[in-house]
């Protein structure tokens, strides 16, 4: 187990380094001049003295060879210093740290809503005896996946803020401002979860052990919730890690539509301004979140199904395939 953890942490560090490196070179290879952008103050065309621009480049170290800049940035990043924003002069880490809590609130709430709502819809789509009801409910997840986040957000705003002023359209103030954005962000994630879970539930409900449960006289509720759901949950649980990544990405659109402060908005603004250090900080942080979440998901598998063991074997890169793939659990 310790070896397994060590190996995973090693992999995580590699992912972080790769994310940093790729982002660094992509951002620097973009056809733009950060110095000219800094000088323009985010505004109309600037007409800056070339000598002043050169001074600015020297000040930010932009006149050094690319590899030297990369090496310095990487070394500094190792000490937790991701540089200072070209635009505001604040440290990139502090800008990200300032935006992060709001995004965590939003994505956290959306994750809870997506898991609860997605599970409820999935169970509801297999539970009723009436066939038409099951079919109607099964149509919900594909619909939710198909609806663009942008569209959902604007429709919610139109109805519940502009016409019937129940919720504020803009800002981060109070829990009430969190309601519409959370729903908006949770819809695609919850729908995706419901889709996988309901499919897996339908498969599981056809398994012999479920027949046995029926035969033993278990109630409809008990068969569905106690016997089928737990096994059916494993494939859905697998996508949870990806889903967290998706929620962070979705925050970009959601925060923009609802004018909320957060990591998404900071990303958009920094990319537009080519504020490289801030974008790098966001990328590294997102990679970190992703690495941690996937690790946690993998560590939780054995708790869901004791047959899954985590081993650090060279030939089996995925811990899941090391013993039993989640989709083979019920085979």
């Amino acid at each position, binding site marked *: 187990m310790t070896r397994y953890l060590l190996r995973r942490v090693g992999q995580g560090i590699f992912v972080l380094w790769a994310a940093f490196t790729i982002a660094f070179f992509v951002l620097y290879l973009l056809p733009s001049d950060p110095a000219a952008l800094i000088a323009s103050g985010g505004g109309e065309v600037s007409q800056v003295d070339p000598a002043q621009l050169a001074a600015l480049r020297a000040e930010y170290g932009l006149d050094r060879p690319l590899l030297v800049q990369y090496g310095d940035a990487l070394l500094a990043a190792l000490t937790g210093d991701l540089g200072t924003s070209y635009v505001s002069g604040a440290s990139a880490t502090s800008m990200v740290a300032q935006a992060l809590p709001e995004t965590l609130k939003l994505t956290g709430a959306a994750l809870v809503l997506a898991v609860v709502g997605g599970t409820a819809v999935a169970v509801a789509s297999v539970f009723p005896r009436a066939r038409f009801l099951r079919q109607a409910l099964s149509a919900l997840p594909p619909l939710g996946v198909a609806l663009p986040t942008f569209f959902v957000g604007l*429709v919610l705003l139109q109805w519940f803020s502009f016409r019937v002023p129940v919720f504020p359209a803009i800002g981060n103030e109070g829990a009430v401002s969190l309601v519409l954005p959370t729903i908006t962000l949770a819809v695609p994630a919850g729908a995706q979860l419901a889709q996988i879970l309901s499919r897996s539930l339908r498969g599981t409900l056809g398994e012999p052990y479920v027949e046995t449960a029926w035969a033993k006289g278990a109630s409809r509720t008990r068969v569905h919730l106690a016997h089928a759901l737990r096994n059916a949950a494993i494939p859905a649980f697998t996508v949870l890690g990806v889903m967290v990544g998706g929620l962070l990405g979705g925050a970009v659109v959601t925060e923009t539509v609802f004018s909320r402060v957060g990591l998404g908005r900071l990303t958009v603004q920094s990319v537009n*301004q080519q504020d490289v250090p801030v974008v790098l900080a966001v990328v590294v942080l997102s990679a970190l979140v992703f690495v941690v979440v996937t690790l946690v998901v993998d560590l939780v598998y054995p708790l869901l199904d004791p047959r899954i063991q985590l081993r650090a074997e060279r030939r089996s890169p995925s811990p899941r395939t090391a013993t039993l793939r989640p989709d083979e659990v019920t085979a």
Partner: protein
Amino acid sequence: MTTTPRTPRRPRPLRTPRRHAVGIAAAVSAAALLLSACSGGADAADPAASDDAEPVAGGDLSFAITVDSHCIDPQQVGNNDAIAAARQTVASLTAQDPESGEILPWLAESWEVNDDASSYTFHLRDDATFADGTPIDAAAVKTNFDAIVDLGAVASLGSQYLVGYAGTTVVDEDTVRVDFDEPSAQFLQATSTFSLGLLSPDSAKLSAEQRCAGEYVGSGPFAVKSYTQDQEIVLEKVKGYAWGSAANAHTGEAYLDTVTFTVIPEASVRTGSLQSGQIDATAALNAVDVPQFDGNGFWLSYRANPGVVFNLFPNESSPLASDEAVRTAISKGIDRQQIVDTVLTPQDQPATGVLSHSTPLFEGADDLLAYDPDGAEKILDDAGWVPGSDGIREKDGRRLSTTVTFWQVPEPLELVQQQLRQIGVDLQLKHVTVAESEAAKESGDFDFDYYNLTRSDADVLRTIFSANARNINQRDPEEVDRLLDDSAAATDPKQRQKLVTEASRLLLERGHAIPVYELSTTIAAADRVHGLGFEASSRLDFYDAWVTDGAGA
């Protein structure tokens, strides 16, 4: 209350013409977001009649902006939204009358300019203070100007106004002299801008970062109360402020207790928020949404931005744009009125010169900018450009196909592209990001550039076109440069007018500038808002603004 209302200098905001387009919410919410439905023309009585009513002090106003550019230091900002907030926090040496363009007293009661416009002496009023109570004296002015020069490229606008700065001399406590190495006639107008607005001497010692975060102490009628990145900038009125400029309607404290600039990136959300009363005003609506705020409990006010209008700027070091026949033919082949009628709003106007009509010293040159496709074709015929098989002209095996690089809204240029096709010119549109466009400008890697530049002084012509300044055309010096450079030294208004007019006409005749349309700023506000207007540079001015329910709120 220390306010002393004067006879309002500023006339009523310009009203939009009567129109049959009032957006009504469509039945389906989604449709309402995407469409601007039309119904009968509501023609409300002038709700901006505010100007006739007696202003009341008190109350709050929220104003939507589109973006937070992560800096609100008046001496560093260049983005319109940041400027809207930053402008209110600083007073300037002078003010500029929005109507006449005349430079009026503000912190300086009077001034003298030497004969070649290279030395300016300002006599400051002796009672003005910064928001923290420290006096605004000659030494403070010197500290500010020196600091702007030190900031260099980071304070790009301010340092550009101070090109050739030799230094500032404190003559006595209330008298300060600014010297330049070379003539700089634009400097007087520059002293009226926010970029040369005054911060307390202590603020000059702060880091660029602290100033960006709004930690500075300013000299304007409002001060920064709080600034939350990407969310909002809250300004509160400065108690005891009593030196409103001669360009404003009163001189005492601002009427509003607070002004909140709320960042709302999504255009349809700005529309909905204004409609539902969650914000009071904005100057950033989509063109299709503007008409629904003309009446119905709202009012519109608009003003053309002074300065150089949206122009196609030929890079005359590139093969095609170096051909004068091609440049002048393109200018004649553009139907400017059609662009405004088809893809823009009633608030926009076709260009009638290189400068917009709200710029001081502007003189129309409609005769040079008439739509004349036949004339354009004749010029090209005479120059040996003959139509090829696909209608695009050719000469010596080269197609008349060229490229414009830009980041602004593409619709006007898409129409230009269609119009030019009719005279056999193929204009390719290269729509890039702001960052790429800046890079192209700097490397000179473009055929035609396209942008506008807001500045309420005709010197903007010289800074862009003169072969001895930016030289946007990348051409060799010629007659027009002499006119432009001389205009920088002309202190006599008549003389300067003559030079600017001659230079403008020459730029058009030689095809160095190909104007398209004038950018305008449109304020849409709820009826409770009064007195919100524009200063001479078409920047927003909240000093005279007040709200109906202010006193009770």
